[in-house]
């Protein structure tokens, strides 16, 4: 008589109700990325500006003579998020390019969608992977800087006078992360090659910026900044931080461009993320 039957046996344990699969996808994706040493290096590098800003806050709160030249204000946090744009770009390509493209290459979509999860859950799970890492290099360090300012200053005076910074940092970081996440996911769903997707994303960012730059050089008018994805985002974030927008384009137009791009990405994902690819 065998001591352990290795034959097929029935499962009698509990099962989660449908609706939680996105969490499984997200946590698996995050774990996979965190196992890559190169990616951990990128994350560490992305926290470099945080260290610089933390030193700045330390110095300005401890040495009043320096505070006059390097004082911390709302602009400091806006500038910090602008500096993080580069790392947002790097992390987006590193993490996002293969999120759906690799699944398409391995025909994994039919495995996913044969399980009790909706296409929306799959997309949300994949988006959560990139979104989490993007917040880790934008919202988390920015909020930590704000916290550091309070702790090192020893009072809530700065926070009281700049109370809008909490929602501003949150909204700006989330907008930045949302735009990058869904644009990249949409591109990732278009191809089976993550390299091609990475190049395509970089191309869109640089090409639109180059088109605007060329037109600005010719006309000297910045009202065409809406042509560039990056400039549109910058314009909206300036407004969120209550700063004077740097381009002549109405900020509402820039916001429409940003939201339109996110909506377009949703539309692409809706068409591309399917259990079966029908070629007619």
């Amino acid at each position, binding site marked *: 008589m065998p001591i352990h*039957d*290795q*034959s*097929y*046996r*029935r*499962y*009698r*344990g*509990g*099962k*989660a*109700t*449908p609706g*939680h*699969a996105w969490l*499984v*996808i997200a946590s*698996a994706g995050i774990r*996979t990325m965190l196992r890559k040493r190169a990616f951990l290096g990128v994350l560490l590098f992305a926290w470099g500006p945080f260290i610089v800003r933390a030193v700045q806050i330390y110095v300005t709160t401890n040495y009043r003579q320096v505070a006059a030249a390097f004082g911390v204000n709302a602009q400091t946090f806006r500038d910090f998020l602008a500096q993080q744009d580069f790392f947002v770009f790097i992390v987006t390509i590193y993490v996002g390019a*293969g999120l759906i493209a*690799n*699944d398409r*290459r*391995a*025909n*994994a979509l*039919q*495995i*996913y*969608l*044969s*399980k*009790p*999860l*909706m296409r929306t859950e799959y997309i949300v799970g994949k988006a959560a992977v990139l979104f989490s890492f993007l917040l880790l290099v934008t919202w988390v360090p920015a909020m930590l800087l704000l916290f550091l300012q309070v702790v090192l200053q020893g009072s809530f005076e700065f926070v009281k006078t700049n109370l809008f910074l909490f929602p501003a940092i949150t909204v700006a970081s989330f907008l930045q992360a949302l735009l990058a996440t869904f644009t990249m996911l949409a591109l990732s769903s278009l191809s089976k090659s993550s390299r091609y997707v990475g190049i395509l994303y970089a191309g869109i960012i640089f090409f639109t910026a180059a088109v605007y730059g060329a037109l600005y050089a010719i006309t000297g008018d910045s009202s065409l900044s809406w042509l560039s994805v990056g400039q549109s985002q910058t314009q909206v974030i300036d407004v969120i931080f209550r700063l004077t927008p740097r381009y002549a384009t109405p900020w509402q137009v820039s916001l429409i461009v940003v939201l339109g791009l996110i909506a377009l990405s949703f539309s692409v994902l809706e068409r591309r993320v*399917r*259990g*079966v690819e*029908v070629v*007619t």
Partner: protein
Amino acid sequence: MTTNTDVIATREPQAAGPDARPEVVQLDDVTVIYGSNRALKGVSARFASGAVGLLGPNGAGKSTMLKALLGFIKPSEGRMSVLGLDVAQRPMEIRARLGYMPESDAHIPGMNAVTFVAYCGQLAGLPAVDAMQRAHEVLYYVGLGEARYRNVETYSTGMKQRIKLAQALVHDPDLLFLDEPTNGMDPKGRDEMLELIRDLGHNKNVNLILSSHLLPDVEFTCDHVVVMDKGQVAAQGPIAELKGPAGRVFELRVKGDLRGFLEVLRQSGMDCHSTDEDVMRVFVPAGLADSYGRAGDQQAIFVQAAKFGVQVRHLRPSVPTLEDVFAKAVGEK
């Protein structure tokens, strides 16, 4: 603490006999259109519980039917139900109780086998610990126990087929869809895969639908069959029934009046037709053969030949196969 016996137990055998099997899948007048191509044309079919073969040549609409049942493709017309649940209304509940082994290579990139299968279990709603335990068990069951820590991308074609079966089984589905499960496998691997499928369908009482264009695969593993051709159901029912009544088929060649002898055989209750210039296929029903005693089926032919005065030059027994059913169903000679 949850023990092994708390979580899993041997599947109990079904009480119903093979003839009283309830239907697990039902299609009513289902039409699927890809652009201008009608992949399924008003298909109505019933899949009994147990092992059912979905047989047909490439392009017959087998995979399309499975994908429509999974909810991947929305039919333009018709109604489908799986395990008594409407596909259009309750796809999530259906998928929670379904296991699907796709035709093409499919895996989650960057994972080893046990992580992949456990991940699929979690996607199907199993808690992480249970999913990992089940993953180990089903990988042993499909014969990948020793290779379960290898990255799936390094697997051979046969191993990839096995792991697709493992991911379909991990959450203990009530119904399995197996789409061409022996594709690309070497003869030994193919036999092992067919043994596994047969074991699931006959000993573990897992309901399964095996889609294949390979007649021997279906015949070996299934009791029922639905034959598809050009997007339509050509035949369906128990394989034994479709093969026709009990009896034996002979290839027969005679010297003499062939047409007259055919008529004599028909009058004596045998079913026969000529297949070539001088070769005929003769079906001797079991009841008729019994009246001629031992080896009565051959005896019956010889007796009629002697009576009619023709000389039997060649007599070779052949058993009706699913191939005959298929050929008859799709209208081939």
